[in-house]
């Protein structure tokens, strides 16, 4: 009981509505107004999970999707049933918080190089895993979209690897490697949780730009579930890795004094501060 109530002090209660509003408004703007092919609708969820714990993160995620579904004007769509995914993302973020993934780790020399290599490797492994995924099925020459998807995977993989490596190197902060790993794992889990929901509730089509990927995978011979899983394994690790870095930058820009007052603050602020 104490473990539960410790995640919901007044400070976290004041944070959660802001986090949910950021999820909804930023997610809506990025997907609908700016029409970018990523979601960016879990920044608030991960922020709360990392600062307060798994339950607070899960609550923020689930509440975000449900309230989004019912929000007048920008609501509707298919977001509600994915509250389960959002809750899992929040749970994982709480775990990363406990593990101190987001703690700044200033580094230099070989250590920094190692971190940059690890970060790039994570992206490379992810990209390779997607590239060789059996859900993409048959020979790319058979399906009209096949080879296009492969080119996009390789392109995005290269850009992401450069971005992560550069981020770690320029900030001289080894935490970037951990953040990349946490983001990638979160993305894979999110994809695995989302696929059955998308397939069961919406026949795999959710009305976003990601539907093109679903169509391409089906063209290649994937069934409804595997096409959704393949789309998720493509979009989610990218999205959650970006989101994790955004959260990392936000945490690094907020005053350490304020962060330290959150339940998991001591896992984020370096001891020296």
């Amino acid at each position, binding site marked *: 009981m104490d473990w539960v109530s410790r995640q919901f002090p007044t400070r976290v209660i004041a944070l959660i509505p802001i986090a949910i509003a950021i999820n909804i408004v930023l997610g809506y703007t990025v997907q609908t107004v700016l029409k970018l092919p990523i979601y960016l609708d879990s920044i608030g969820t991960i922020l709360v999970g990392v600062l307060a714990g798994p339950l607070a993160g899960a609550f923020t995620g689930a509440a975000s999707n449900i309230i989004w579904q019912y929000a007048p004007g920008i609501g509707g769509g298919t977001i509600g049933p994915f509250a389960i995914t959002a809750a899992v993302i929040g749970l994982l973020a709480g775990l990363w918080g406990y593990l101190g993934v987001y703690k700044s780790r200033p580094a230099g020399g070989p250590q920094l190089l190692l971190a940059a290599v690890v970060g790039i490797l994570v992206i490379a492994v992810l990209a390779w895993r997607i590239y060789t995924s059996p859900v993409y099925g048959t020979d790319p020459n058979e399906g009209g979209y096949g080879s296009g998807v492969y080119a996009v995977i390789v392109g995005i993989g290269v850009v992401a690897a450069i971005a992560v490596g550069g981020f770690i190197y320029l900030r001289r902060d080894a935490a970037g490697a951990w953040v990349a790993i946490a983001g990638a794992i979160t993305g894979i889990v999110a994809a695995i949780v989302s696929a059955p929901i998308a397939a069961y509730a919406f026949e795999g089509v959710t009305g976003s730009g990601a539907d093109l990927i679903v169509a391409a995978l089906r063209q290649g011979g994937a069934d409804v579930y595997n096409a959704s899983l393949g789309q998720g394994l493509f979009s989610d690790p990218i999205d959650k890795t970006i989101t994790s870095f955004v959260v990392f930058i936000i945490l690094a820009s907020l005053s350490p*004094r304020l962060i*330290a007052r959150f339940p998991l603050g001591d896992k984020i602020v370096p001891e020296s501060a």
Partner: protein
Amino acid sequence: MTLRLDGATYRYAGSGTPALRDVSLELTPGEVLGIVGANEAGKSTLCLVAAGLAPATIQGRLEGAVLIDELDTRTARPSDLAQRCGILFQNPITQLSGTAPTVWEEVAFGPRNVGLTLSEVVARVEEALATLGIAELAPRDPGRLSGGQAQLVALAGVLALHPAYLLLDEPTSQLDPYGTRLVGDALAALVAGSGAGVLIVEHKTDLLDRVCSQVGLLQDGGLTRVGPAAEVLADPQLEAAGVEPPARVRLARAAAAAGSHLPVEALAG
């Protein structure tokens, strides 16, 4: 029954240097005490410590004692302190609960939190709105008010808890000139009529000149001087401490420099 700081020294968590050094002061119901000081002199910290929010809510380390009606702020429940000591912050928007569709319900937020009966809640809300002369705002959406109006609604929300002490942390610093006058006038009327002990912390001294009987000067976290308002506000030490004296004092000085005497004391009241 007093609000008392007894050699209070306070350090923020993770900070070695105290933000407040050995401050002792006493506030009794009915008294109006002003505190002036430059930016970063520790004015906001003094309010947080006096209200018991530091260290209870924001952690950090408090030495000495802070007692609100003999309740030690280090051990008392924040909700018990809230009903004895109200605090008004600078930002009018962040103080509103953000959950109420009308000003009326916004003001009822505090009384409902502490579980008063419904009829008591209704009475307190009506009274707080009437006291500040904003009864006509009652049906409005709190999110669509001007800065000055929002600050008055925030103040009404605090008054509805019937605090014996009221701490005002630069209540007009984030308002436009119109809002400053609106809130200033309401505060002057409130302070004159309420039986509460009021502590006003300000960078601008004109409001203090209007309403305070005693004024203290806060420098680098320490209370260096306390005395009758007219005396302290006219002290040249004020400017050395980075505080601009009230217009009345500047006017008198300018007149004196020009060789004439203005009966500026008459303007005080």
